[in-house]
C-alpha cells in the first residue's frame, strides 16, 4: 500500500510518501496506523496522538475504525485548515 503524509505529519516523518506491506492482521485504518507507528522513532512521534490525525483511504475521508478492504492508498494528515 502507498502511504502519503501531509503538512506536520509529513515533516515529522521526513517523507511525503512510502510503500508499505500491510500485515495480514491489520484490518482497520487504526490497526494499520498503530503498525506504521512502530516503523521508527519519527513515525512514532508523528502518529502518537490519534485525536490530532485525520485519514483518507483512496482519497476519501475515513475514521480509524474503517476497514482497509482493497484500498491502495492511505493518507495521514492533521485536521485541514484551507480557505
Amino acid at each position, binding site marked *: 500500500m502507498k502511504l*502519503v503524509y*501531509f*503538512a*506536520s505529519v509529513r515533516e515529522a516523518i521526513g517523507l511525503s510518501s512510502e510503500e508499505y506491506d500491510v500485515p495480514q492482521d491489520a484490518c482497520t485504518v487504526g490497526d494499520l496506523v498503530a503498525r506504521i507507528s512502530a516503523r521508527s522513532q519519527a513515525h512514532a512521534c508523528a502518529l502518537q496522538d490519534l485525536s490530532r490525525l485525520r485519514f*483518507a483511504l483512496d*482519497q*476519501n*475521508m475515513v475514521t480509524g475504525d474503517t476497514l482497509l478492504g482493497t484500498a491502495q492508498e492511505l*493518507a495521514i*494528515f*492533521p*485536521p*485541514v*485548515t*484551507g*480557505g
Partner: protein
Amino acid sequence: MKHVRISSAAIRPDQELAALEGLGGGALASFTGIVRDDGGVTAIELEHYPGMTEASLYRLIEAATARWALLGAVITHRVGIIPLGAPVVVVGAASLHRAEALEATGFLIDRLKTDAPFWKRAHYADGTAQWVEAKASDEARAERWV
C-alpha cells in the same frame, strides 16, 4: 456550470467569477479569502492533496447544486507561498435571485474550511514558520449546514 481550479500562481477574483456573469441569472454572490496580517504574518503557505482536493471541492459544488437552484458555481484555491494581502480562495455562485447564491456561497466556504484537504502554514517576519491549527469555530460554522 461547475468549475474547480487549484492555482500555484496569483488568482484574480474578477477573472475567476467572469464565467458566472453570463448565465442569465440576476444574482452572483462571492467570497474572497485574503492573507491577513495576523500577529506579524508576512505570507502563508498552502499545501494540498492533488486529486483528492479537487474531487472534494467538486463534491461541495455538487452538494450546493443539489440543495439550491444554482445556475453555476466556482471554487478557485491558490496553493504555495501567498503574500500578505493576496487572495487565497475565491468562491462564487450564480442564481436567478439572490437568496440561493448568497446561501450557497456561505455553504461552500464554510464546508471548504472543514472538508477540503488543505493545510496552511504561517510565515513570520523573523523568518519562522508555523502550521496553523484547525479552529473549533470553523467546525461550528460548517455544522450549521448539516
